[in-house]
């Protein structure tokens, strides 16, 4: 199950912003991305190496810069 994959990888659901995030991995998945992708694709994205600095966002459509900045500030 997608939920289990995310939970096992220490992703937490952010209720207000409808996203899954992991502060250690600095990755964010939109709920829509999770809903629209297969389990193996989600696993691959989780395992993908991070950039080292800044958050990596996974979404179905491009994220406007202002939203990305706001989310980065919300997630810390």
């Amino acid at each position, binding site marked *: 199950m997608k939920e289990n994959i995310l939970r096992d990888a220490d992703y937490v659901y952010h*209720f207000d912003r409808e*996203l899954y995030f992991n502060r250690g991995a600095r990755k964010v998945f939109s709920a829509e991305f999770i809903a629209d992708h297969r389990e193996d694709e989600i696993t691959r994205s989780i395992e993908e190496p991070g950039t080292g600095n800044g958050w990596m966002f996974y*979404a*179905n459509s491009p994220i*406007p810069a202002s*939203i990305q900045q706001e989310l980065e500030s919300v997630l810390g």
Partner: protein
Amino acid sequence: MQERTIEDRLRQEYFELLPDIRRVESHLRALIQFQTLPILRQLGTHEQLIIKSRVKDCESAINALRRRTKEGKRREFASFDRNRPEDYSLLDLKDLAAVRVLAFPLTRLGEIDEALRPLFPDWTPDPIPDGMGGALAQKYYGFCPDLENKVQGEYQVVSMLTGLFWEVEHAAIYKPNPDLKGAERNSGLEELTQEVYRALANFDTGFARTISQRKT
């Protein structure tokens, strides 16, 4: 001077629209009450038909707009694009004024739905899916006939058992604790909710069957 946020601008819009929203709510409710009177008069002693209406409150309206697009799709990351304030208007919401028709048992739902359709021929059907390929409730939205207004209204025809469950669920999950918004999406509650729907539908149809067998 600090620039106004999108939320502040939407709050102003809400209170400018409020008289119109109230007008749509009372107009829609009166129309539906009148149109369902013949059914109300024929109800058996075991049957119920209740009509409820509400005006969406300001913060709920802003949150709904933050979460959904004009087309009703979920907005990714439930966020406003601060660089495009002109993209957002509460007039995009279809349920600022809404009426819910609750009936028990569910055998009356089809009859109520058919009685109301001719009143709103141009309204868009938007049934609420039950997650199993069917519909939990019939829902329609559009502009009120005979009422010049820029605010859309919505009405639903739903089993009373389901509708009352929604009231409890909504009050428990959404209203008192903002942290629980969206909780149904990832904490197993979604599955439990489906079980409740199945149980309520089983009771509804079982009850209707029993009554019908007693009559024959």
